[in-house]
């Protein structure tokens, strides 16, 4: 998917954001200084295995990390205003209203002892000075918009009476209810059936266009990223290893890790049923015992002595990667 050309104002600009967790057995570097931007109206895909730092980035942005997290950032600008990620006051002002988030498991993300209606109305009334009646009216419209049948009845339901797909629709309705400029969708469909998955993502795409909002779409599934994201950013062990326009990155990956991810997709495997599915050898390194040099070198088929000694820097162009021995453009 290509980004419409007129949309290239920066909505979010982050420079050198890092996160450490203090624990009894020393500090864990969950996020090494990373820099990236989100443009107005774009969908930025973020890919990586678990532990790669995708979720930590988003939670840091929302101020939802646990108390033992230490966040440092050189510069964070959101919607042309500087933002202090260590100030809960700053963050509360934009949370929910300017930046909204939907989570992986919709079944646990809604409060089990409050009705759907209560949770929706509460959100609306938290950010707008409106009566309960008006909020209820808007909630109904929102539920209708996200494709929930019989919204009147659903307002009175408790979350456990809803299916996973419906719960995620409610979460989406709640997230867009205050017209956020940025929606963070953290693996929004991983916990759902494949059939529901497409409906939810199409809905998100429609809403994104309709409300002209930007979206950070986190997924480990490259096929979904390819279909829905304008730009993509690949993360590994708390670092960004590659980024650029989705089509380019997928067509000509430069980092061996991205290459491995692409090769490991079941769809890349079509027509070669006799061969076993490719898997990147080894596992994501423990953040407690990081390897030296390039974080990926123990698993990389192109690694040399240099990779062990020295960490590669991320190139500065829009189409960037961090590798000493990048794959050639064919």
């Amino acid at each position, binding site marked *: 998917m290509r980004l419409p050309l007129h949309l290239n104002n920066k909505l979010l600009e982050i420079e050198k954001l890092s996160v450490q967790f203090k624990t009894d057995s020393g500090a864990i570097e969950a996020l090494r200084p990373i820099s990236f931007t989100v443009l107005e109206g774009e969908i930025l895909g973020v890919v990586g295995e678990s532990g790669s730092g995708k979720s930590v980035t988003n939670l840091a942005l*929302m*101020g*939802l990390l646990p*108390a033992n997290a230490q966040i440092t950032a050189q510069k964070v600008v959101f919607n042309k205003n500087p933002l202090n990620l260590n100030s809960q006051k700053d963050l*509360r002002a*934009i*949370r*929910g*209203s300017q930046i*909204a*988030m939907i*989570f992986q*498991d919709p079944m*646990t*993300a*809604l*409060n*089990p*002892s*409050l009705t759907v209606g209560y949770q929706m109305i*509460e*959100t609306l009334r*938290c*950010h707008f000075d409106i009566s309960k009646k008006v909020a209820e009216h808007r909630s109904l419209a929102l539920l209708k918009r996200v494709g929930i049948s019989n919204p009147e009845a659903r307002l009175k339901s*408790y979350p*456990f*009476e809803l299916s996973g797909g419906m719960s995620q629709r409610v*979460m989406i309705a*709640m997230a867009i209810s*205050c017209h956020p400029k940025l929606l963070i969708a953290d693996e929004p469909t991983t916990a759902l059936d494949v059939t529901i998955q497409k409906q939810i993502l199409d809905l998100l795409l429609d809403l994104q266009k309709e409300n002209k909002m930007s979206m950070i779409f986190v997924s480990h599934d490259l096929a979904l990223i390819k279909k829905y994201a304008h730009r993509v950013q690949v993360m590994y062990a708390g670092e960004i290893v590659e980024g650029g326009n989705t089509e380019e990155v997928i067509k000509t990956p430069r980092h061996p890790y991205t290459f491995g991810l692409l090769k490991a997709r079941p769809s890349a495997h079509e027509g070669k049923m006799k061969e076993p599915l490719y898997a990147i050898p080894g596992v994501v390194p423990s953040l407690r015992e990081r390897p030296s040099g390039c974080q990926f070198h123990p698993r990389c088929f192109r690694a040399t002595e240099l990779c062990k000694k020295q960490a590669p820097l991320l190139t500065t162009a829009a189409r960037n990667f961090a590798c000493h021995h990048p794959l050639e453009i064919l």
Partner: protein
Amino acid sequence: MFLFLSKKILEVSFTLVGITFICFLLLRLVPGDPVLLMIGERNMDPVAYAEAKQKLGLDKPVLVQFGKYIEQVASGDLGTSVTSKTSVWTEFKERFPATVELSFVALLFATLFAIPFGVLAALKKNTFFDYFLMGSSLTGYSMPIFWWGLVLILLFSVKLGWTPVSGRIAVEYDIPLKTGFYLLDSLQRDVREAEGLKPFWSAVSHLILPSIVLGTIPLAVMARMTRSSFLEVLGEDYIRTARAKGLSEYRVVLIHSFRNALIPIVTTLALCFGSIITGAILTETIFSWPGIGRWIVTSITSRDYPTIQGGVLIISVIIIITNTLVDLLYIYLNPRIKNALLK
């Protein structure tokens, strides 16, 4: 729902029969002659003895005796006290309100302090404040309350003279009992007209120390429970959602966490209801509080076995019923279970 209720009732009646059987056995297991135990040892001639034995049905087989005992209990006859010669039920009725009043105030005191303490400790996890609160609560939990009561008497009654040492109300007030709860009875119109609010404040001042003593362990248990329950809930996904929605911390804690954290807290509170009688026995002994705890202890020291038997039976029945009600409350608080049962 119906199935669940009937299962519950069956379970409870099973336990009730078991308890009754234990109480029935009690008098037969005690060393010595049960006839003498039941009617007292004074002024006993052989003819009266034989009569009593037959009257008590002790010449029949054990199971028949048990059947008879159940029949007797079901008709409200719990035996007659050896020492006072009044029926156990009457004696119980006179003392029960005192214990209920004390327990209620003690649990109220415990709840009012435990929940805020527990919530604060959870929110300030691993700070000095948290350690201090949890250290105090473990100390409270380990407290021999019979000593704690004496320490408080020494400090507040003897040294400072703030609170009375024993009883439920100052002796000069003789208020007519309607409910048996002095806090209510002292507010009756004719009492108020005659004495003003003085009797009420006297009753309140008599309640302070015993309630603190009786409430100490429930306070400690509930504060710890509240903390861990809150910590668990605060780690849930839906709390993250609530924060992500931009809700104020106040709403996150009070609306989103509280209700879910409340379920185990209420369960603990209810379990405290059951175990409070243990504390009441000790507290009432220390403060000469005329309730059922002291009643049981006195009946043991005076070897008044019919009173022990009847008293233990009533107390256990009350506790079992309370615990059952708690189970139902638990269901009511948990919409998931409630809906599953209603269907």
